[in-house]
């Protein structure tokens, strides 16, 4: 289900944004516009949909417009044109009263530098959103403590932000956003100010939380590893434009243009590329009703030394080698079940190359990719594992 829809969103900075909008729509470049009219483009024609329960990452370098884009969603920054639809309601057309309600009830936000109130205790910080809504003290306290427990900060209620480490402060920031139980979480570079190790820890914790909460999360980052790690889908931005939207794997294996390609080239592909994108069509299989002669002929014509055997439901039974099959032909037997080697590695399509590597080293046979029901999806020959890491899986191997 679509939770949030952004349609043709533009944000222009400068004295008279509406006036130059037409020039921008006609394709004036960012530099040209700045030189000619003194207007800067924050976001140019951004359109995307975010599904319910999805982690949607917007990634780009600084100045790419990602923070501007996310601030347009709760109108911390007023978009110049375009529409934002949340649960079928237009955020852009909301009056100030409706907008307050949206900010209070539907959208929570987590900030890069935590943005906690230094004069309030942790509990009072977390309860801030509820206090703004004039909830009773009992309700505020209860929800604040629940939210703190969720982020693992129980017992810190009465301390002040300056007494906590950066990682803990951002947990408070997260708890504050969760306390009002919003549908959508906007996380603006939420973990970027943290040390790399703490950042990793927070990422995993966010994913654990997310598996329980199933919120819709829009996560802004400049860190591709982070984007690939937590994003269900990623939008890559450059100069205010969205260059590509796709799953982490689509972005890596099929970059839309040179910019994205350059961006992703340093990624540790072994962690992201999965079995499903490097597997080959299993065209060298036989079913168990075929005899040994058929097996030998197929192997010879395909120039291979072993072949997979399936049952009627396309479930894998095992593999037979050409030597065993020849022996069987010489013995004039047709019982290929007797020579099936069941010692083959089977993996799911989601297995990453990193996990495939040790298997590939340990077996002389190709690795089988099968779905949860055991139905064969494809096979991975050992050389594909290596070329997958190098990003050459498109070429014939």
């Amino acid at each position: 289900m679509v939770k949030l829809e952004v349609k043709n969103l533009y944000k222009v900075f400068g004295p008279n944004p509406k006036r130059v909008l037409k020039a921008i729509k006609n394709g004036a470049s960012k530099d040209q516009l700045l030189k000619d009219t003194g207007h800067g483009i924050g976001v140019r024609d951004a359109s995307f949909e975010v599904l319910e329960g999805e982690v949607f990452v917007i990634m780009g370098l600084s100045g790419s417009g990602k923070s501007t884009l996310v601030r347009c969603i709760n109108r911390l920054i007023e978009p110049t044109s375009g529409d934002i639809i949340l649960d079928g309601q237009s955020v852009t057309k909301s009056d100030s009263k409706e907008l307050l309600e949206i900010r209070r009830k539907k959208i929570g936000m987590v900030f890069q530098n935590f943005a906690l109130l230094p004069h309030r205790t942790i509990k009072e910080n977390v309860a801030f959103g509820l206090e703004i809504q004039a909830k009773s003290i009992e309700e505020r306290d209860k929800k604040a403590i629940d939210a703190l427990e969720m982020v693992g900060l129980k017992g810190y209620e009465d301390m002040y932000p300056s007494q906590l480490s950066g990682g803990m402060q951002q947990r408070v920031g997260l708890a504050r956003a969760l306390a009002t139980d919003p549908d959508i979480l906007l996380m603006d570079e939420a973990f970027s100010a943290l040390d790399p190790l703490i950042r990793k820890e927070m990422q995993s914790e966010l994913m654990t939380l997310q598996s329980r909460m199933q919120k819709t999360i829009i996560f802004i980052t400049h860190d591709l590893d982070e984007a690939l790690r937590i994003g269900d889908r990623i939008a890559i931005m450059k100069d205010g434009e969205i260059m590509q939207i796709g799953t982490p794997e689509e972005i890596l294996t099929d970059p839309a243009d040179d910019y994205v390609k350059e961006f992703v080239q340093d990624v540790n592909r072994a962690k992201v590329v999965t079995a499903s994108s490097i597997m080959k069509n299993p065209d060298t299989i036989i079913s168990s009703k075929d005899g040994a002669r058929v097996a030998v002929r197929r192997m010879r014509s395909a120039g291979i030394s072993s072949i997979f055997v399936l049952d009627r439901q396309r479930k894998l039974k095992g593999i037979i080698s050409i030597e065993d099959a020849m022996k069987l032909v010489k013995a004039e037997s047709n019982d290929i079940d007797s020579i099936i080697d069941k010692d083959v590695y089977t993996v799911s399509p989601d297995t990453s190359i990193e996990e495939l590597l040790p298997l590939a080293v340990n077996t002389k046979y190709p690795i089988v990719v099968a779905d949860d029901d055991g139905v064969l999806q494809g096979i991975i020959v050992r050389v594909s594992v290596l070329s997958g890491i190098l990003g050459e899986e498109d070429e014939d191997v």
Partner: protein
Amino acid sequence: MYRLPIGKYVEIFIEWLTANLEPVFQAIKAALLWVVTAFEWAFEIVPSYVMVLIIALIAWRIAGKGTAIFSIVGLVIINSIGLWAETMQTLAMVITSALIALIIGIPLGIWMSRNNVVNAIMRPILDFMQTMPAFVYLIPAVLFFDLGKVPGVVATIIFAMPPIVRLTSLGIRQVPEDVTEASIAFGSTSRQMLFKVQIPLAMPTILAGLNQTIMLSLSMVVISSMIGARGLGDVVLKGITQMRIGQGFEGGLAVVILAMILDRITQKLGNKNNGLNGQDT
């Protein structure tokens, strides 16, 4: 060469004001006189040793033991040189003026912080108010309110108000943008943001303004003795005009003691609030 008759225009303007706004000035005068007299009455009805203890207690609660001891010693000295009544008169005028300066100045500072046009208009006016020699305020004050305490209070309010206006505005503008952004993102109205976020975070700066306003009030109240405002300034003034060095020194000493007590207490008020922020823990 043509002489620009600015002084003449100011005189005409003041004359027009006195002629046309007489009832307004009378009302202001009555109100101010009532407030000053009320404070004076309160300070004088309390026996001096009780007053010493009250001030020492306030000093101890806010600024600690050292300031409390200093207050006791200082006030006992004042009492023993026979300037207690004058000191209380001066204190009453300082508190009245500072209070009114705060009542007008803080909202003005808030308005300045939120509105760039108001900011642009107010800044030169504040510069003017602060750099104009203090004596100059005495003349129109006398014209509008005759001689006595009220023109002294009015001149003091004008002279002492700029710091609290400036520092209120500065304090609010210095609140980090991400914090105000967060408060908007959670659905604060601008009033909620002001009272729950901006003013609490600006408090140390606002209290620094309070300290300056009180100190300026004291210095102006002393000067106002020239237009008959009585108090410690009167003692000093008599010392000067009648060449009585001893009396002048005693008056001056009492002013200094009062100034130090007020300064230490209000300064600590700001620092204490800082501590609450946890910034120095």
